[in-house]
């Protein structure tokens, strides 16, 4: 088989829909188009049955019961519903939320909004490896803390947080625990009971399902979690999320979840080997590479590397037949370097030089080898052009330079 260009290595951003998922969805656009809330005819019953089947498929993937799964439009909505829903519902119990500086904007900005409404939010720092320190979490808890929200895996660096440890602390203190697990679900085993998670956000399009559909796991026993709804209306989804259900999307999410559950072990094994091949190949060819975040606690398909003395956007320009992301300021809408990489304390210069690789279900060894070769050449070429690389080779300590900024 010949390799097709461009190569997609940005599976953290989104994934293609698995053809088996598309096939499962198709009848629900045309033949079985009913409204799942139509209780008095066969069209509605069919749709409802499909939705309930998908609910079970999602629940099985995360070790939950079907009734604990609420369908949403995606993980951003799930995060909003979980955090705002808890903050409103448990307002009398407390006004303090604990999160972490490397969370996705869907969590950070939701927390900032709560702050404007008078809530108190603690943003825990992360250690050099990208993980929160459990002692610091303990120290941040007050008698007003009602929610801890920490992601399972980071979207930029792929680092897995100590979720079981956080869950145990939350349980001990009687605080609700939400995790944005959008990058982790379907990629690594996630069990809400083993991890003692009370609320969990997930999304279909990160696990080979369609865009525009996701779910929020809401624990029903020990404790029974209540949420103040953020979208009011016909009382769908146990009143927590009104709006006519996106039946084809939900069917797709369910099928995607089932495939992930059945194929996770094989995918993990294959992708972690390819990821390690990519990492080893780059390190063999190039010096001064820095892997961002823990290598040990990491998603199997994920790698984030800083190529010192080379700027990320110019790097991307040189590998324009490979789709990856960079933490460089020039590639972000905000023109700021990645706040996640800055939080690791590695220095802004390394954030500018970073590339995120996300491997996926259709990544091949041939593609990985092509990327190694291509990147090696581009990095070498750009370093020949880099005044910083030249200075370092001359023995200049860049950290002791006085830069003329503008």
């Amino acid at each position, binding site marked *: 088989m010949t390799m097709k260009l461009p190569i997609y290595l940005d599976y953290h951003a989104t994934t293609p829909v698995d053809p088996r998922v598309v096939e499962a969805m198709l009848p629900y656009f045309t033949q079985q188009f009913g409204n799942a809330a139509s209780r008095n005819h066969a069209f509605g019953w069919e749709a409802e049955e499909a939705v309930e089947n998908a609910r079970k498929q999602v629940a099985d993937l995360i070790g939950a019961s079907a009734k604990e799964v609420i369908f949403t439009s995606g993980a951003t909505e799930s995060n909003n519903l979980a955090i705002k829903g808890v903050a409103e519902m448990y307002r009398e119990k407390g006004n303090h939320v604990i999160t972490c500086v490397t969370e996705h904007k869907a969590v950070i900005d939701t927390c900032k909004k709560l702050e404007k409404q008078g809530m108190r939010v603690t943003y825990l720092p992360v250690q050099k490896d990208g993980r929160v320190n459990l002692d610091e979490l303990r120290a941040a808890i007050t008698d007003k803390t009602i929610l801890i929200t920490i992601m399972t895996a980071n979207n930029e660096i792929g680092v897995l947080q100590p979720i079981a440890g956080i869950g145990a602390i939350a349980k001990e203190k009687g605080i609700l625990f939400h995790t944005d697990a959008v990058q982790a679900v379907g990629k690594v085993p996630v069990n809400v009971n083993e991890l003692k998670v009370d609320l969990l956000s997930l999304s279909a399009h990160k696990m080979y399902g369609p865009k525009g559909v996701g779910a929020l796991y809401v624990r029903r026993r020990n404790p029974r979690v209540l949420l103040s709804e953020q979208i009011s209306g016909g009382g769908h989804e146990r009143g927590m999320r009104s709006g006519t259900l996106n039946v084809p999307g939900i069917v797709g999410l369910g099928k995607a979840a089932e495939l992930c559950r059945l194929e996770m072990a094989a995918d993990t094994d294959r992708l972690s080997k390819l990821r390690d091949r990519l990492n080893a190949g780059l390190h063999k060819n190039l010096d001064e590479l820095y892997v961002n975040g823990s290598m040990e606690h990491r998603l199997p398909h994920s790698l984030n590397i800083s190529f010192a003395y080379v700027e990320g956007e110019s790097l991307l320009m040189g590998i324009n037949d490979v789709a990856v992301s960079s933490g460089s300021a020039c590639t972000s809408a905000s023109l700021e*370097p990645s706040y996640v990489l800055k939080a690791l304390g590695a220095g*802004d210069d390394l954030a500018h030089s970073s590339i995120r690789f996300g491997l996926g279900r259709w990544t091949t060894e041939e593609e990985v080898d092509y990327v190694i070769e291509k990147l090696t050449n581009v990095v070498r070429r750009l370093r020949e052009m*880099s005044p910083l690389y030249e200075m370092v080779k001359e023995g200049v300590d860049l950290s002791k330079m006085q830069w003329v900024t503008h």
Partner: protein
Amino acid sequence: MAYSNKVIDHYENPRNVGSLPKDSTHVGTGLVGAPECGDVMKLQVLVNPETGIIDDAKFKTFGCGSAIASSSLATEWLKGKTVDQALAIKNTDIVAELSLPPVKIHCSVLAEDAIKAAIADYKSKQEKDKGVPATATHAQPNA
């Protein structure tokens, strides 16, 4: 983001990449920008003592494609100009030539700064030769 063909051309075939002997009295070096800002440019000119004309110009840049293209273009323009003509190069000329989008204008500003810093370094070396104390205008190691 979409680059203009000229930016892509300078990125893929950069003109005058390299270094000139920075201790030479006929060479002016400008080093501007900062690693934590994501762009650093080093631009050097070699001035002919007889004619006062820039005989050679070299650059090295750490930065995005537009920063590389801006400094590459600057070296092209510098060659054959007098020092005063060089100082007349404006960042807006670079923006126009490379069709830089608004978010990339700072790259052209940095290139203009690099030209000015290189010329100032050259001039200070000339004055130093005449025994006038000079002031540093480009990045240097802390004392």
